[in-house]
């Protein structure tokens, strides 16, 4: 079971750099999601890995085979990969069984064993008995399962998925996430999964690579990305956050006007910095109940501007008293403070994540 290694990949369309120096290592048997907004280069990357596009520079390795380089591109049919497409790409003129059996002809499975393999795989994706149907006679979810079966039955070394769930309705999408994760755990195929949906990426993958402007902005587990974002883009793209621009005064102190915040466990170099503070890590309390301030916590005065009841949480906007800063706070229900109330805002120093000030993506060394 080989892994995939993408090194220094560049791909331009005319004047636009779709992929701009992308490095990525997928370990054997790992499922990595390529996550990013449209135009970040995730689908282009996947199509280069599949062999449908030639790289302008850079290489794609699978195990010890170099499959793509500007000089040589092994055609898709000789890559031993499987792919699931956004449109499912089921052939309407073939039955479900014919669709699934198609790839078996090319990887040396004897004719006599093909039917058995197809039946077995359709059972795995819970479509036993649908062999003789045509794709047009199936629901969207069933078509999706046929596409999965067709890609898995050939036992590919690498599995590629291009936004496979984006054509499904919301409830089915949720169900298929777990289904795909289950299949990955059953077969353990090295997998690249392209999506623009962060919760989908977090549920399905072992690690998530967040792509920004054709590069990997950060790669890590869902928890790492959420708790320790390395760039402003990642912090904003994964979950909600408050971003405050200011300057680092000391190695542990952030300043914006008269607002001072203690930043825990950070080695800040003096100069401009952006702080990311997740709304759910901020606590609100009545101004009268002044808690003791400690080194590990920032306590500030604020006024509630707005409170929106969301069912499982209350979304507050509060204006800090010592500056023009407005913070979003996710508080528990039922709401305990109302618009106009003076409150105390408690922000743990460990919840303040310092980030580089501009949109620049630091060249990160990828964790292996």
């Amino acid at each position: 079971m080989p892994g995939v290694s993408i090194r220094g990949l560049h791909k331009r369309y005319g004047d636009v750099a779709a992929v701009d120096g992308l490095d990525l290592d997928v370990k054997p048997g790992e499922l990595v999601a390529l996550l990013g907004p449209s135009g970040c280069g995730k689908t282009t990357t996947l199509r280069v890995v599949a062999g449908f596009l030639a790289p302008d520079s850079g290489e794609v390795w699978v195990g010890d085979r170099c499959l793509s380089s500007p000089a040589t591109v092994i055609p898709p049919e000789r890559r031993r990969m499987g792919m699931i497409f956004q449109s499912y790409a089921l052939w309407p003129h073939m039955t479900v069984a014919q669709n699934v059996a198609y790839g078996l002809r090319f990887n040396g499975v004897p004719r006599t064993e093909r039917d058995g393999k197809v039946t077995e795989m359709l059972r795995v994706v819970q479509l036993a008995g649908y062999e003789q149907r045509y794709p047009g006679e199936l629901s969207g979810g069933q078509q999706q399962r046929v596409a999965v079966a067709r890609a898995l039955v050939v036992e590919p070394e690498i599995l590629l998925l291009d936004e496979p769930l984006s054509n499904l309705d919301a409830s089915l999408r949720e169900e298929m996430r777990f289904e795909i994760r289950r299949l990955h755990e059953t077969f353990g195929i090295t997998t690249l999964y392209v999506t623009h949906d962060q919760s989908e990426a977090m549920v399905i993958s072992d690690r998530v690579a967040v792509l920004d402007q054709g590069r990997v902005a950060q790669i890590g587990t869902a928890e790492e990305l959420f708790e320790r974002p390395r760039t402003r883009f990642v912090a904003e793209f994964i979950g909600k956050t408050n971003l405050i621009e200011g300057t680092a005064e000391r190695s542990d102190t952030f300043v914006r006007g008269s607002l001072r915040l203690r930043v825990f466990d950070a080695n800040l170099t003096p100069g401009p910095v952006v702080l990311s503070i997740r709304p759910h890590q901020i606590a609100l309390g009545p101004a009268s109940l002044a808690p003791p301030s400690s080194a590990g916590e920032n306590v500030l005065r604020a006024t509630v501007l707005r409170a929106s009841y969301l069912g499982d949480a209350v979304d507050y906007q509060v204006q800090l008293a010592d500056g023009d800063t407005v913070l979003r706070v996710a508080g528990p229900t039922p709401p305990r403070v109302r618009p106009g109330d003076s409150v105390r805002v408690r922000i743990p120093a460990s919840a303040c994540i310092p980030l580089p000030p501009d949109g620049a993506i630091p060249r990160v060394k990828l964790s292996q």
Partner: protein
Amino acid sequence: MARELTVTVRPLPSRLEGLDRSAPVWIIAAAALLLLMLLPLAWLGYLSVSGEGGLTLTHYARVFTDARLQKALWNTVVLAFWSALLSLAIGAPMAWLTARTDLPGKRVIRGLVMASFVTPPFLGAFAWVMLAGPNAGYLNKLYRGLTGAETPLLNIFTMPGLIFVVALYTFPYVYIMIVNTLELIASDLEEAASILGASRLWVALTVTLPMVAPAILSGFILSVLQALALFGSPAILALPAGFHTITTQIWALFQYPPKVEMAAAFSVPLLLATALLLFLQKKLLGRRGYAAVGGKGGQRRQIALGPWRQPALLACLAVMACAIFLPYGILAKAAFSRAWAQPLTWDNVTLGNWSFTFLSISTQTAIVNTLELGVLTACVGAGLATLLAYITNRRLIVGYQLLAFLALAPVVIPGVVLAVGLFIAYTRPPFLLYGTLWILFLAYLTKEMPVGYSQSDATFRGIHPELEEAGRILGAGRLRVLGEITAPLARSGIIATWCFIFIGVIRELSASILLFTPNTKVMSVVIFDLKEEGQFGAIAVLGLFMLAVTFLAVVLMQTLLGRDVLGARPSGGSG
């Protein structure tokens, strides 16, 4: 957890392994197209400026100073302008009536317009000779019989007569352009204006008309192009009347003693004029035509004609009477009567025309030639067009845009001009094809390429590339995917392309008339020759036979495409 994989380790890939084995197929197809298009045009251009002692412009000078040729130029301008205007006057209202109103019998009208579209114009011209010739014309005889007048009511052998007949078979171009646009405009756009307080007429003038305007103009230009390129109708109606158009003049220059250089020099301006007009039409449509209209069209609601329903229907039927009922009627009558101009009594009925026509050796040869050429051109043409459309759609080779351009380029080449180019190119080494059916085959292949390419292009646009990629990633090479996945999905589209080309070939006259030799006559040429002999019965028989074959192909195509030849969605279909 991981299943055992049975994968043999292969050696590191060599450079060769990365090569696309299908590349030769694309390159050969591209080269064939390049040769097909460039050879005749290059020769045409070269011969028009070549003289005894090198390059010269004397041919052009003679062409533009010769009073007869100037007259032919002017006649063509007059014919093209007025017939296009008349086409617009017929086609635009009819398009609006059938697309937007509650006119009764819309499907029938649509079907009749389609029949007029596929009717070879020269057959229509023959029919109108029989209907409105000054002496024997059937309508004139009726008129004289009814009124006792001495002078004929109509004389088809005049410029107005020619314009009238040309327009009868050109107006479908305008009709198609406008109907297709009207069907894309959602009623919402019009209703948005109504809700703001605009009256029905005001909405039509300020919303509908401006949106259809590009289609109207480009329909007009298409009609002009049609009239410029036409050979049959002017040859049948203008020559007896004693005047020439450009196309008949080029033909005359080819008669003994042939002046090929003059013909070439005379062809180039016609070529440039068509190219310019087509460019103009593309510009018009590109700027705000369909893009602004866009979308799949929302709901379309019908406009009630009220008391105008019957008069509107009568007007449409009157047009169709001139284009279809009367011509087809007189052809049928001529085919079954001993003397076509006499009343159809029992004494006059005969099947003699049929046996005379089909027993004639030269006619038999021509029918066989035509069908052979039709099938051969349609097979090769559909195959080549399919490959080319596939290459350009999937961007398989560098310079695919040039291929698309070349495949569509013959649209601007009138048949007569193409024939001049082919004649020059293939009467000298290395390609000596004149006198064989092959030169006709090349002419037809070139002439039908735009139609075939557009049709195939539409087919491939409808096939999602991911369907092919899914096959590739599972281990099938590009050619295998083309055969096992793409071709089955494109099948009905390819057969429709075949039919389009076949229909175009069996009715072709303007290129054939310059390229045929006694052994390589085709049906249209035989019909043209029979006119000289005054064999109207035989003309009618052959004409009806040609129409029958054409309609057979049309029906086959409609069945396959699930829509009619006019390209619009079937009326009554989902909005």
